[in-house]
């Protein structure tokens, strides 16, 4: 049996006295889409950045295709990154470059694709996320939030990655655009046959794009299971989260006025 695409064991990370991750174990099989849910500040972004190698965990092991990825050197990191695509929460488009240069950045700068060819490929990728070639030469700042998100998605899939990460893909979008993005994510992931890890607190999005859901609370994955089981998890924390109730075991740190 082949090793899981991504495998985390005992990953911990603290910033000063604040323990953000306290021993995360997670396996993601090839072609699987896992969604990690959790409240704001529960460490979802940190978890994602640890897997990506942007943040170095304090302890634990992170294996990509069975290969240990913590403490890779610059060259090894660049090689691993080729397998990854990442959709950042705010898009993180390069505002000094045009739309097509953003989408073609990976192929051109890192894989040595010539500009003419990269531009053609970029237009194709933009088409895949429902954007026409007319926006190619615009700057990201000239686009609406939903369009920026789609350009960012096109950039994330431009190098046809094996693993795609989605950081709150629907945050800040209207419900309809959120659903458009969800459908695009499902389509892109299945077209590429990619493995996906998403973090979100939008339950509609989680149900749509995930095969499996894990809930992160207090630095630990307190529940994991198939999407279908989320409504009968038997876990009070999960129930409170998916129904969005202020009352329950998860106490928000709100002081009385």
């Amino acid at each position, binding site marked *: 049996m082949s090793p899981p695409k991504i495998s985390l064991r005992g990953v911990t990370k603290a910033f000063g006295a604040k323990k953000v991750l306290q021993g995360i174990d997670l396996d993601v099989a090839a072609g699987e889409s896992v969604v990690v849910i959790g409240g704001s500040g529960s460490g979802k972004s940190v978890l994602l950045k640890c897997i990506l190698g*942007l943040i170095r965990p304090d302890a634990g092991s992170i294996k990509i295709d069975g290969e240990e990825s913590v403490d890779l050197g610059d060259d090894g990191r660049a090689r691993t990154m080729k397998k990854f695509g*990442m959709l950042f929460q705010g898009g993180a488009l390069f505002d000094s470059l045009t739309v097509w240069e953003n989408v073609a950045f990976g192929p051109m700068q890192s894989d040595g694709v010539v500009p003419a060819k990269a531009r053609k490929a970029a237009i194709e990728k933009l088409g895949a996320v429902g954007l026409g070639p007319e926006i190619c030469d615009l700057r990201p700042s000239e686009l609406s939030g939903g369009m920026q998100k789609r350009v960012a998605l096109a950039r994330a899939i431009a190098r046809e990655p094996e693993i795609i990460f989605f950081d709150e893909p629907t945050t800040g979008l209207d419900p309809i655009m959120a659903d458009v993005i969800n459908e695009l994510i499902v389509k892109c992931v299945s077209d590429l046959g990619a493995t996906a890890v998403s973090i979100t607190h939008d339950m509609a999005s989680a149900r749509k794009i995930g095969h499996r859901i894990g809930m992160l609370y207090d630095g630990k994955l307190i529940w994991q299971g198939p999407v279908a089981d989320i409504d009968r998890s038997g876990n009070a924390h999960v129930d409170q989260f998916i129904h969005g109730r202020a009352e329950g075991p998860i106490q928000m740190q709100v002081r009385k006025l």
Partner: protein
Amino acid sequence: MSIPVVTVLGRMTLAFLAATGAITTFAVHAIRQAARPPYYRQQILRQMLEIGYYSLPVVGLTAIFTGMVLALQSYTGFARFSAESAIPNVVVVSLTRELGPVLAGLMVAGRVGAAMAAEIGTMRVTEQIDALTTLSTNPFKYLIGPRLIAGIVTLPILVLVADIIGVLGGYLVGVYKLDFNDTAYLRNTVDFLQFEDVFSGLVKAAVFGFLITLMGCYHGYNSKGGAQGVGMATTNAVVSASILILTFNYFITEAFFAR
């Protein structure tokens, strides 16, 4: 006061040493990355244009007025002991050794160092730097290396231009206001000028170029916390670059001339 002075001093010293260490580590890492391929030629050229060409107006203006005021001031001083003929020499030596590189450096620190810190800082807080990494592009190679190289290469050229413009300023005041003979003024300028005067100034310029871009990149790269963080990074970049310029100016001068 409940905190004794010694505690405060100690804390400040520790913070200073920590910052020095962090900046040195950053610089070594940046140089090591910049020295190895891939080189982003387009980025280097873009930064050279930004640092050099677009700084020409402000540096040129600074230089011409500095040259003019130098001639005027030294005239009022030197006329007291009939040493007016030394004015062209004083102007050109002061400019090439000191004022050209230092004033150009300070102006560029304000113009370019600030912009660099703001740009890289914004890229940091909007996750664009993380995005670079996920696209297999090393931010040290793509963002910081080109800026450092451009700074080191461009500042000497800029200072050479500033030297020439400054001498022209002195010449204009000397000939049209102080009634110097124009041939004599130029001959006095050239005759006593030594290679080392200009060369030391250009070495300073290269060092200043490195310091300005390093401070811009370092503070931008390490900025956090949104708009306020970027604002702080910008201020810190300009202030620290200016102080470093003045400090290094002394030591380079000593290395060249204190024998």
